[in-house]
Every structure is written in C-alpha cells, then in structure tokens.
C-alpha cells in the first residue's frame, strides 16, 4: 500500500526564521506515531507546517496521493488532515454544538457518534467555547477535528494542563480511536511514556531535526535513552 503521508526534506519556520531543518518521514494508513522532544524543538511547528500555517522554505508534503506542499490550510483539512491545535484554540463565540456542525463533513463521525464518545459534550452542547473546563475544551478540540472525518489526526499535546483523572479518560478515548477506529494519528505529548504506550512508532525532534526514529516499544524499553532524548521525569 502507498504511503498516506510522505514528507521529504521539509524546512519551514516563521517568516525568515527557520525552525524545521530537513525533516523527512512517512506514514502508512492506520499507523500511529508519537512525536516527542523537549520544549521548543519544533513539534508544534511541524504540525502547523503540515496544516500550511507556517512559511515553507523547501521540501514537500504528500498526503493521500496529493501534493499538498503549496495548498492553503483549508484544502489540507479537506484532504483529510484533522488538526487538534496545542492549547485547544476554542472559538469563544461558538457553542459546543456549533464547533461541531460548522466544520462537519460527511462520514461516520457525525454528531451522534461524537456524543457517544464524549457524553459530556452533549450536556454542554449550548455552552460557548470559553464557558468550558480545560478537559471539556480538549474534548471539543478533538471532537471538532473528528467531525471533519479525517484520515490522519494531528494531536498536539492533548493532555496538556489536565488533571490526572481527565488525562486517563482522554488517553483511553485516543487509544480506542487508534485501535478500533483505524485512524492514523500523530501524537505530540510531554507525557512521553503515555504517548509511546498508545503508538506504534516514535520520532524524536531536537532543534528542528529528527534525532531518533524507532518503534515506540524500543524507547519504552530503553528508559535511559528516552531520558536522554526527551528528559522525562
């Protein structure tokens, strides 16, 4: 089977400033990838670059057989990239339900399916985006990406700033999405072990470059190496 996502020699950043340096990797459909690295190494920049929200200096992005290197963000989303931005990026003037209906596209992830996975969102359907707890906001951010019926979900630190019990709850949902829904996922996470336990493969970034690539299991087994690469507690 052909690659779902293929990135070659990608360099990008903000204006003239280069953040990502010669990134290449590919993913097959149904694959799950943990994207790790210390603060400020360029993980979010890679996600934003996939969405077309940075300045690309060189390199290419192919997704589902289409060259998206020059595509505007909305076309990338419509091609099947589902972005869950870091810090959630709620729309304060939209209700929870509007967050979902406004961006929904045809597919198995409709409103009913979302409310099945996140019953809490059904209770909060009329709340505005800024009238939600952190955990609820994160659920909206994930749900809002799911209703676009993506082929590849980009999760940028979905557990950031959440209470441990909520982290467990969300991790269970994300794990189910990967295992049962057959969704391809890239997870950026500070809780490296959590991300590794959910995924099959792992990539570690440092200063905008890929410094390690292996199976997630390999990093889980070699705690010393993981510590060196991402400085986990």
């Amino acid at each position, binding site marked *: 089977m052909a690659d779902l996502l293929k990135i070659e020699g990608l360099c990008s950043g903000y204006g003239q400033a280069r953040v990502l340096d010669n990134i290449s990797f590919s993913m097959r459909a149904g694959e799950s990838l943990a994207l790790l690295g210390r603060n400020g190494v360029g993980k979010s920049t890679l996600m934003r670059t996939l*969405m*077309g929200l940075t300045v690309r200096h060189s390199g290419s992005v192919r997704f589902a057989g289409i060259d998206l290197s020059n595509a505007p963000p*909305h076309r990338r989303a419509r091609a099947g990239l589902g972005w869950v931005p870091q810090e959630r990026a709620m729309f304060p*003037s*939209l209700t929870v339900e509007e967050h979902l*209906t*406004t961006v929904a596209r045809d597919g198995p992830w409709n409103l009913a399916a979302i409310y099945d996975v996140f019953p809490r969102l059904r209770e909060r359907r009329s709340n505005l985006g800024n009238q939600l707890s952190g955990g609820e906001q994160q659920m909206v951010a994930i749900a809002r990406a799911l209703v676009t019926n993506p082929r590849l979900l980009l999760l940028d630190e979905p557990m950031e700033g959440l209470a441990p019990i909520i982290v467990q709850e969300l991790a269970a949902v994300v794990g189910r999405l990967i295992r049962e829904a057959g969704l391809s996922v890239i997870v950026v996470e500070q809780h490296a072990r959590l991300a590794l336990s959910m995924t099959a493969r792992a990539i570690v970034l440092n200063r905008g470059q890929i410094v390690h690539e292996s199976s997630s299991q390999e990093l889980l087994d070699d705690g010393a190496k993981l510590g060196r690469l991402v400085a986990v507690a």
Partner: protein
Amino acid sequence: MASNILGILFDGLAYGSLLFLIGVGLSITMGLMNFINLAHGTFAMAGGYISASLSQKSGMPFLATLPVAFVGAGLFGLVAERLLFRRLYKAPHLDQVLFTFGFVLSSIAAAHYFFGAGQQMGVMPSFLQGQIRVYGIDLGRYRLLLIAFVGLITLALHLILSKTRFGAQVRAAVDNQDAAAGLGINVGLIFSLCFALGTGLAGLGGALGIEVLGLDPGFPLKYMVYFLLVVVVGGAGTIRGPLIAAMILGVFDVAGKYYVPQAGAFIIYVLMIVLLLAFPTGLGGKRA
C-alpha cells in the same frame, strides 16, 4: 421643549442608523482580518453616486435604485478586495493605512472627474417627503423609513450571523483564523464574501443617506473618522457594539450641532474618548 428633545433624538437615531449601516461591514472585515481600512467610505460614496445617477439621468424611482446601489457597491468592493486589498492583509498597519488612504484620495479624484464637485440631490418620491405627526411630534417620513429599514437589515444580519452555517463560519474565523482555516473553513472566501456584503451595505447607506449625509466627492474623507469611530468604539468583529456606538454617535452629534453649534465635532470626539477609556475593547466586548 420635550418634543424638541424627542425630535433631536429621532433625528439622531436616523443619523446613527446610517452610520451603522455604512460602518457595520467595516466592523466585520476589520475583525476578520485585522486590516485597517480607511477606504470604506469610498464604497458608500459609490453607492450614493449609483443611486443619484440612476434617478437623475434615467429617471429610475429612488427606491428602485437602492438594490442597484447595494449590488454595484458590493461588486466594486469584491473586485477591489480580490485585486488590491488582499495583498495587504499581512502587511504592517502603516502600509495598510497609507494604501487605503491613497485609495480614498484616488476615489475622490475619480468622483470629481465623473460627477463634478457639486452636491448631489436625491430625488425623493413624494410619499417620503414631509412629516407625520405622532403624539404631537413631527417625524420626517424619510427618516422614519430609514430607521425601519436599518432595523430590518440589522435583524437580517443578526439572523445570518447567529443562525446560519455561514454565520458560524464567520464567527469562527473572527475568533481564531488559523484554527478555522485548519478545520477546513475557506477563510479567504469568507472574507471576500463579507467584504462584498459590507461594501454593499455601505453603498446602500450612501444611497439612502444622500438626504442626510449629503454626497459630494469629499464624502469618504468627511466621514472617515465617523466610520472608524463606530468600529473602534463599538468593537471590531461584532454587530451589537457598532450598533450601540453608531446610535450614541448619531444622537450626540445631532444634539451637539443643535445646542452648541460652535463646538462642532468637538463633542463627539470627547464622548468617544470617554467611551474608549471606559470600554477599552469596545462596547461589543471583542478585541478592537
């Protein structure tokens, strides 16, 4: 005395309705793109001249010219946005100010060339002339129509923004452009449509307002500050804030000119500074 005050209030509301009708599009587009646009009055002027030319030269009834003014100014806005303005969204604010100010000056020169320097006269149908007496107060029929008309348009805008998918997409794009685009909303298209709608409404306001605001080539410059005040005081990206701001501006401007004519526009400038100090993010509560 009391009827005098009510009369001023009425005139002020009519005047404010026009300021809102013209300014509301500017509020939405400034909120969407954070784009400083001084040229909004040019589109209002375009609507005014479309209406005046049609009624003077081809004898079209005034009311029939209004939809033409709306569509004509909207198309003008759409073309200007696609060809010119969109290149400046990412530019520094100073560039935006300089460019749009240059656009205003060019439009003044063009209006001068095509229509001459004089004031245009609206051709009001007879049923819009004169006054009707309500509870002892004389209300101008034309101003009454103006208020009712703008009321209806405000309601329609509110319904579009709050009840339709398009409206929700506009709100999402105002709230967070990157997130909206990253979820598949074509922000550029949304903006073009809003710009066309906003400039169309400005053109409608320019046409409706010939009797109240007047119409000559200096129009976009003369009212520039008023439209900007509506947006800055009201708050960009909303319609409720600019509505309140336009009404306050209209009433105080009319009252000021009646009671203390020697103070000129001084009163509204002071008032607007006070309002801005009290509501730094605008009456609508959004970022300005």
